């Protein structure tokens, strides 16, 4: 397979609002036809970055290269980029069809072509039956599809989506996540989605960037970000993580109670420095074999049955917070545990990630 082509290069882009730095020298490459997620807590700069890609904000510094051409100062109506707004921003005085046609009318295309392209996208987004309705007569999910159709019909090089599923309830959200992914494959357009929902990015994105305080912390595939977080913040923000605070040693972390947690220590971490060892809940086993590198005992404080698996809160001497452990329903059936039980738990050194604290 050949190296995928870079569509959009964000090159050392910064944005200041007065004395506040919203985006701080971010560089990112977004590839042709990928589903890219910008993820971070609110105020991390992801929305500002998105608005710079759409053309509603001008970078204070840096370049935004689309197909190699700097578009940082191109007005929004002159870039082959479309944004699906969080509020959908459908024109309330226009029908669904008029909303979707609007962008093509701006390109001064022949009426016949507009009609056929609008018909096609209404069919793709299953909106044919609603073509003559006004936005106020639509449900949240239908409005979302109109907003998507309105942006997609322009066949942009890049489609930006600002928290596209934020207004939908949880069940509809799951369905729309898959729907968006299917559509992205079907139309072959690069999607950049902004979200604060880490689960959403894990499910949908081919690659994701984690932002905090205007800075890029990590940019990689969901799998790599989940398994090898760049720092403690990313480890905590993506998924669930158990942290064991302590001090770095040559081959692991010395916990506060004197226990040694084996794991690979990053080169940058000097012996004796404050460090934290971490392990994902699904990597911890109950009743481990004697060869397991890291072992401890704890008391089951609470259980939560979740269908596929069982979530346990286990109090251990290693950390002030109880450990979260996920056991498959299958394993739980073979060796049942109950609240108040003393259990042994263990995990491999290879599953431990160590960060500066």
């Amino acid at each position: 397979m050949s190296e995928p082509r870079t569509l959009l290069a964000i090159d050392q882009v910064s944005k200041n609002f007065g004395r506040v730095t919203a985006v701080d020298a971010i560089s990112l490459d977004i590839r042709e036809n990928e589903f890219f997620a910008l993820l971070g807590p609110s105020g991390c700069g992801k929305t500002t970055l998105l608005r710079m890609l759409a053309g509603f904000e001008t970078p204070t510094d840096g370049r935004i290269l689309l197909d190699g051409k700097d578009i940082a100062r191109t007005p929004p109506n002159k870039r082959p980029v479309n944004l699906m707004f969080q509020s959908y921003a459908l024109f309330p005085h226009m029908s669904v069809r008029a909303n979707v046609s609007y962008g093509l009318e701006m390109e001064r295309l022949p009426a016949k072509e507009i009609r056929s392209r609008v018909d096609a996208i209404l069919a793709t987004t299953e909106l044919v039956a609603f073509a003559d309705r006004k936005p106020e007569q639509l449900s949240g999910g239908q409005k979302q599809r109109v907003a998507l159709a309105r942006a997609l019909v322009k066949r942009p090089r890049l489609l930006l989506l600002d928290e596209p599923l934020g207004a939908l309830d949880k069940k509809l959200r799951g369905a729309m996540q898959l729907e968006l992914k299917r559509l992205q494959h079907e139309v072959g357009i690069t999607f950049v989605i902004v979200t604060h929902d880490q689960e959403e990015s894990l499910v949908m994105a081919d690659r994701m960037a984690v932002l905090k305080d205007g800075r890029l912390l990590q940019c990689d595939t969901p799998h790599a970000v989940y398994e090898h977080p760049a720092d403690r913040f990313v480890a905590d923000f993506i998924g669930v993580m158990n942290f064991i605070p302590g001090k770095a040693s040559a081959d692991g972390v010395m916990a506060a109670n004197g226990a040694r947690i084996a794991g690979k220590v990053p080169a940058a971490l000097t012996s004796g420095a404050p460090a934290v060892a971490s392990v994902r809940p699904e990597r911890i086993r109950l009743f481990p074999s004697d060869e397991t590198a890291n072992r401890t005992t704890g008391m089951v404080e609470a259980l939560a049955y979740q269908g596929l698996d069982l979530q346990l809160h286990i109090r251990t001497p290693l950390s002030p917070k109880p450990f979260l452990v996920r056991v498959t329903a299958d394993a739980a059936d073979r060796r049942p545990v109950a609240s108040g039980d003393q259990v042994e738990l263990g995990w491999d050194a290879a599953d431990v990630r160590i960060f500066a604290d």
Partner: protein
Amino acid sequence: MAPALVWLTALMVVPCALVLALAFFRRGIYGGIDYTFTLENFGLVFDPLYAGIFLKSARIAGTATLFAVVIGYAAAYAIAAAPRRWQPIFLFFAVLPFWSNYLIRTYAWIVLLNREGLITQLLRWFGYTGEPPSMLYTEGAVIAGLVYNYLPFVILACYAPLSRLNPELAEASRDLGASAATTFRRVILPLTVPGIAAGAVFVFVLSIGNFVTPALLGGGRFQMIGNLVYDQFLTANDWPFGAALAMALIAITLLVLMAQAMAANRASGRVTEANGGADG
């Protein structure tokens, strides 16, 4: 409900009914009222002389409305685009003249438009030496006075829908390839028409019946319907004809208000939608 009805009956329905009744009687020979039924007064309203004054009043009120809407909308747009915390201050200054007396505000225009008034002096200061322009006691002066007096209504009426408009709608239009001008014409303007209509009706209705401004800025010879009604009641002592003219004026006003109410009803759906914007 009941107190409101009593209030409305005592202060609106009864006086209007009395004036309406008056219009069906004859004028007494020495003024006063001769209580014999007639439709003559209404016939006289359509006399070319008086119908002409109606038309002229409508034209002046219409022109004043047009200017007030253009200036008022632009002002409201600028205020709505200003930083949030400045908006109440700008609005306060826009409405400030409104809290002074109507007569004083109108007299101020005499000071401005006078032959040797402020505008003439300003022209002289810039080196103008010719005849002072005659501005006072013209139709233009009357229109300027009406526009000035009723501008705050338009600013307030247009500011409301403009400030509530979801700014993402304009951004969406730009994003879809529209220029700023097209965005204004196809998105912002249609969604703020109810405010324009409300402001326009206000200016038109108050202007067409106005008699103070034409009397002061139009000079003694200048007549609009309001002056005509005033003269019939207070100078000519022809109360029945005055009443018929007043009824014709009320009829015009009601028609305009009904047209506006119907237009607003049609537009109300899209306005509530535009204000909400986001669902969550």
